[in-house]
């Protein structure tokens, strides 16, 4: 009897281990292939050069700058909007059929294919608002894309704050606003941050919506600098500049014939993975720092 139950346990353990090995193995293989193909290609020249017809002279500078700038603007636009929407839904909105509907819609939006967002952006930002194929358009598109994810994860993080903590604040005479900003948000910051990083990690690898709005695949200049020599010394012209991003650069190289460009693509992929990992690493670090402060 006991032996049979132990057998079942051993079987399950083996099955679990196998699944784990399969997942990790595939990932390791993929990563290994990227490294073996691309690592040799990454050097200072690769990071600081514009694309070129000759694979050995080509680089990812515009894509690197484009991806970074777009991530920045996406975060600046998407995070406050998403967090604010989540706070409103969770703390202020009354439970009515309308909020229920909004809730379901937001959750479903998180599962809508990203190319649909691209189509929306093409119609709305590029044509109707006349923003063109610019960094701003791409950022707004990706901000829309990550909005549902940010909202859902923020709401979950907020909901995890124990009721008795809120009641303690309220009983002391705190207003709802004070309760949210002094307690709810700081204590749920780790969860919110995790959601944000996950969302941004998804956004940085997005290709479909960026292609849809008409991003360039070959670009030989950088956006205008944000700092100028003439007053007022700060320029937002770069927001309206054409751009390319890492995944598109990768795609452009993959679709070229020839071994050399495949190496470039692998190298670009490696850089992209490193950017994502760096973002996740940052999130883990900040989470670790914050968790030390908050506990109950």
């Amino acid at each position, binding site marked *: 009897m006991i032996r049979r139950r132990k057998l079942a346990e051993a079987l399950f353990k083996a099955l679990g281990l196998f699944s784990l090995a399969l997942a990790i193995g595939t990932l390791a293989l993929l990563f290994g292939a990227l490294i073996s193909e691309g690592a040799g290609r990454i050097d200072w020249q690769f990071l600081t050069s514009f694309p070129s017809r000759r694979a050995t002279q080509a680089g990812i500078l515009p894509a690197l700058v484009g991806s970074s700038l777009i991530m920045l603007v996406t975060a600046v636009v998407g995070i406050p909007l998403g967090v604010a929407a989540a706070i409103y839904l969770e703390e202020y909105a009354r439970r009515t059929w309308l909020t229920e509907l909004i809730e379901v819609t937001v959750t479903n939006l998180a599962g809508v294919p990203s190319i649909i967002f691209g189509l929306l952006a093409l119609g709305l930002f590029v044509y109707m608002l006349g923003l063109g194929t610019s960094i701003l358009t791409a950022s707004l598109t990706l901000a829309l894309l990550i909005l549902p994810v940010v909202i859902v994860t923020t709401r979950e993080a907020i909901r995890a704050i124990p009721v008795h903590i809120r009641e303690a604040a309220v009983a002391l005479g705190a207003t709802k606003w004070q309760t949210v900003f*002094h307690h709810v948000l700081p204590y749920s910051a780790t969860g919110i941050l995790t959601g944000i990083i996950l969302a941004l990690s998804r956004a940085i690898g997005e290709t479909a919506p960026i292609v849809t709005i008409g991003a360039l695949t070959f670009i030989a200049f950088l956006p205008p600098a944000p700092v100028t020599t003439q007053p007022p010394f700060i320029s937002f012209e770069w927001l309206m500049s054409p751009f390319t991003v890492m995944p598109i650069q990768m795609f452009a190289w993959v679709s070229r014939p020839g071994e050399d460009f495949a190496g470039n693509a692998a190298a670009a992929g490696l850089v992209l993975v490193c950017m994502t990992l760096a973002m996740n690493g940052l999130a883990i670090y900040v989470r670790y720092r914050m968790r030390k402060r908050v506990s109950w």
Partner: protein
Amino acid sequence: MDVMELPHLESPEDRVWPKLLKAETRALSFSYGNRLALKNVSVPIAEYKITALIGPSGCGKSTFLRCFNRMHDLYPGTRYEGEILLHPGSRNILARDVDPIEVRMRLAMVFQKPNPFPKSVYENVAYGLKVRGLTDRRALEEKVEQALRSAALWEEVKDRLSAQATSLSGGQQQRLCMARALATDPELLLLDEPTSALDPIATANIEELLLDLKQRVTILIVTHNMQQAARVSDWTAFMYLGELVEFGLTKQLFTNPSKKQTEDYITGRFG
């Protein structure tokens, strides 16, 4: 309903009644959605005395307590009826034009489970004052020390005011919550089974503290522990199924209850 039928007016000659009132409820009813949790409860709260609410679980004593600082307003589908008068001023704090925050500024509450904020000891005690707009550091520090002394916690935490409040022991945490409540000089202190999560020694500490505190603040305490009510309170209200069964001097209620139900409960026949 005729006012003369209110329980505390029915037989004035054989019942002792507190003279100086801090607050009183008049025909207070409360419902969660369709469920009536309190029915016509009228209880006086004597000033600078400890009033205990006893009764079996689910009798509505916590619900009653939480009416005083309008805690139920946080949740949808709750409804008050009747009045809670807060003296002086005899303001009905359930009135529509009364902002619940205004009420909460005058009262303070300590909960069943110690619920310090995951912040430092100092920040916990200072929070109520900060909410009220006090920013002067000297004044804050002074108030925090005073409150911690009132809660008999100062000696234990004076060297680690910046330590995490959650690193304190359970009993210390509850006294910290007490200090947090006292820092804002409340007129009425609401205690919702403050010792139910504590061991006997920590419980004894808190009870001693309550006896000290009643010189300065009126206390309304909910407890499921009858011995505790008998030990610390001056007045006791016994509630059952959302209704007030009996109210009287604690000594009288415990030695010579006038209702059969009260007697059954305090002798341990049910509850």
